[in-house]
């Protein structure tokens, strides 16, 4: 029986984006793309997922948020504790893949830290790569968000890319499509180098 291929993500936005990227780019099928609720839950569930029966490959897509090194370290610690002996000190820019330790039941593990395994940020920073380069509309979106009067500024700095992407989607031919289906509708274009890298990581982890 072939083992299970499972991808853990933080929330439903991540789930839908990943599902639509897999659909658009012909990755798959995976057994499950599972939203964990939030990063705390993901980190709590991760070590137990490593011990799930018949698991062949386990992927994690997680936001760097403000501190990429700390986020990587929190996953690295859990892997070392679970019995992975050769976990790199730093995440690979191409997405990290750690093979299954010999003579164990542990799965191959992949880690992708949004946006690009190198910078701080979140899913929506990654989605900015999917906006057509040089778009005048996008320049207008960015300047609108940048020019919100200070007394009306309601979101935290970390949420700025979220505000920008959702404004971009609000101004498309079909305003207000959710993140996932916006990829299928090509309001976000998945044929870009950054998606190529993510797709390569998914294929290397799950379908090598």
């Amino acid at each position, binding site marked *: 029986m072939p083992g299970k291929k499972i991808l853990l993500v933080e929330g439903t936005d991540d789930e839908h984006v990943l599902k639509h990227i897999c659909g658009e780019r012909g990755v798959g099928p995976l057994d499950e793309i599972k939203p964990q609720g939030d990063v705390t839950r993901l980190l709590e569930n991760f*070590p*137990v997922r490593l*011990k799930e029966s018949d698991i062949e490959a386990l992927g994690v897509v997680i936001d760097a948020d403000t501190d990429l090194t700390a986020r990587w370290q929190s996953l690295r610690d859990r892997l070392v504790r679970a019995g992975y002996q050769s976990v790199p000190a730093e995440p690979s820019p191409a997405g990290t893949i750690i093979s299954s330790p010999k003579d164990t*039941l542990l799965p191959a593990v992949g880690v992708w830290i949004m946006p690009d395994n190198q910078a701080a940020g979140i899913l929506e920073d990654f989605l900015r790569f999917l906006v057509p380069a040089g778009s005048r509309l996008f320049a207008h979106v960015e300047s609108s968000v940048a020019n919100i009067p200070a007394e009306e500024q309601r979101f935290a700095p970390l949420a700025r890319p979220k505000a920008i992407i959702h404004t971009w989607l609000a101004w498309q031919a079909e305003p207000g499509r959710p993140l996932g289906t916006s990829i299928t509708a090509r309001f976000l274009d998945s044929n870009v180098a950054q998606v190529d890298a993510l797709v390569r990581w998914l294929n290397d982890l799950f379908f090598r």
Partner: protein
Amino acid sequence: MLSLVNAQGGLLLIDEFENGLHHTVQSEVWNGIFRLANLMNVQVFATSHSWDAVQAFQKAAANNADQGVLIRLTSKESQIIPTYFREDELAVATRENIEVR
């Protein structure tokens, strides 16, 4: 339960814990086993392939700190490999429907 009393100071082996037990009573039975095992100083090994039994065990184990562990035995290339789930890990597994069998 009677066999538990008879096993005082020793071991009790239970094959297919859930046999004949409706899922609604299983965690109460586990609670009884934990209580009596403590009282009679018995170490209990129970086998099961039932998710209901695992869930019921988890509930009872959560009430009895550091007394229960789930061990899955997997055969791989003529070896048998054990995988341990502590109570806190078992709580995550049952909450998230992570297969431990």
